[in-house]
């Protein structure tokens, strides 16, 4: 691969990221942003923290605050990526992007970049709220490790989001399915209670979703664990996210094949 080839791919990557940025903030008007990025997260944390405090005692509030703060990455990762893809479709930029000779896998993955960044910002907002309002204590925490957990979780949920982005190409109501998954994660991913309390078969689903291992790792990091103690969890979390992204790409490539044979003009 020559230098100019790499340069051109970097350019495509940058441009598509920029497109996403524009698209993302098109739906997020100031009022919409406040409602969906600040009010809803605060609400969600408030609800589960109060519920948890009622059920298990006020000393456990931080447990619920931490879990729900991390779950917010799914908000950016899943809904953000879907919005990005829907916008590409709406503005007709998708064929242009894919028609370019750049590496298609790279282009496909790049659609999630903005949402990963957005996810990280969302979690930081979530942590600020958890510390300020719900008494999350980070004094003993391994902060750099916690930060790493946040980045990894943002990446893995965006990987799942890419899958839904592809589904969205054929299914008008993909956003509904995404809503289901988003809220299912509240139950299955150890956000509000340990995964071990779920029936065995359901735990299998838990560990095939992003977030589950990341939340576990983050809880360890807050308790002061070292990198070595959670490396396995984080590695697994990354692999799960990558698996979903690759599955999303495979689905996308299949759909594109159909579309090019004229079977499904609508896909773009």
């Amino acid at each position, binding site marked *: 691969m020559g230098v100019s080839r790499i340069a051109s791919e970097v350019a495509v990557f940058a441009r598509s990221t920029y497109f996403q940025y524009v698209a993302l903030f098109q739906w997020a*008007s100031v009022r919409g942003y406040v409602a969906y990025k600040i009010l*809803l997260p605060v609400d969600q944390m408030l609800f*589960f923290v109060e519920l948890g405090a*009622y*059920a298990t005692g006020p000393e456990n509030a931080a447990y619920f605050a931490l879990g729900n703060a991390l779950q917010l990455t799914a908000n950016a990762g899943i809904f953000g990526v879907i919005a990005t893809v829907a916008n590409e479709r709406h503005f007709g930029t998708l064929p242009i992007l894919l028609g370019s000779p750049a590496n298609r896998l790279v282009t496909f993955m790049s659609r999630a970049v903005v949402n990963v960044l957005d996810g990280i910002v969302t979690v930081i907002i979530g942590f600020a709220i958890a510390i300020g309002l719900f008494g999350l204590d980070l004094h003993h925490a391994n902060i750099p490790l916690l930060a790493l957990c946040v980045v990894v979780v943002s990446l893995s949920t965006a990987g799942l989001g890419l899958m839904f982005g592809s589904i969205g190409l054929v299914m008008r109501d993909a956003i509904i399915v995404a809503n289901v998954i988003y809220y*299912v994660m509240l139950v299955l991913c150890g956000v*509000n209670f340990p995964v071990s309390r779920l029936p065995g078969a359901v735990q299998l689903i838990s560990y095939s979703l992003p977030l589950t291992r990341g939340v576990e790792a983050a809880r360890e990091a807050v308790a002061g664990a070292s990198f070595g103690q959670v490396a396995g969890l984080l590695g697994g979390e990354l692999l799960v996210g990558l698996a979903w992204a690759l599955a999303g790409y495979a689905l996308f490539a299949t759909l594109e094949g159909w579309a090019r044979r004229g079977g499904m003009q609508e896909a773009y």
Partner: protein
Amino acid sequence: MRSLVRAAFSSLRLTLRTRVVSGWMYLNWLVFPLIFAAAGLFVLSTPGGSSSRLVYGVLGGGLIGYWSVAYIDGGNGIQDERWQGTLEQVFATPTPLWVIILGKVAGAILFGLLSFVPTAALGYFGFHAVLPQLDPSRFVISLGVLTFTFFCIAITLTPLFALWRWAFSMVNGFEIAVYVLCGFMFPVAILAPWAQGVAGVLAPTWAVRALYASTMAEGPHDLVAWWLVAVGLSLLYLCGAYFLYALVERRARVSGQLAWA
């Protein structure tokens, strides 16, 4: 008068027909309450906790679903009509907007009541949570009062959505806060005093309190007083709604914005 009743029924029928085929509706009355009920039941059944709390999981998921459908559907309904370009068409008919919205809200209420079916089933089969202390007549009256409060709130909020699209996303932003303030899944008494103050002016808070009290043997049981407060507050909202509808009809005719998609 009869023609207005007919128009309201027609609007109700239209809502039911369009919602039966809407995926969002199933998300709101079936999936969403089930997930909250499951999360709630798992947390409430944490080993060492009191089993009397499980009732909050059984009914809480249903209440969440019921509320979401009752108010969201008004907003979604208006949004749909705007997209289809029918909002302006129905506005121009000799039927006042509140009659049409009345029919829509009634349709949403019927769907919302369905929420209790899957959540109660989950509670019963998944967690063996039953309601042994349930007083059926008090329970039914409380649910009726609750329905009235939801009905009045939805009637009052929907014209706001017709006028300002952003109002819907703002109210959506407060959705889960309402679960907290109205005590859908845990008693309002555990909240900070100022939050309890806010909760007190929300009509459903009192109806929900009566509903839970009707399922428990212990605790205070001033049900009649709570019912009256809930109904009184709801009627106050309706007074506000009267002015809101007048404002909407006026504003819409000045700007012509009902036509915008």
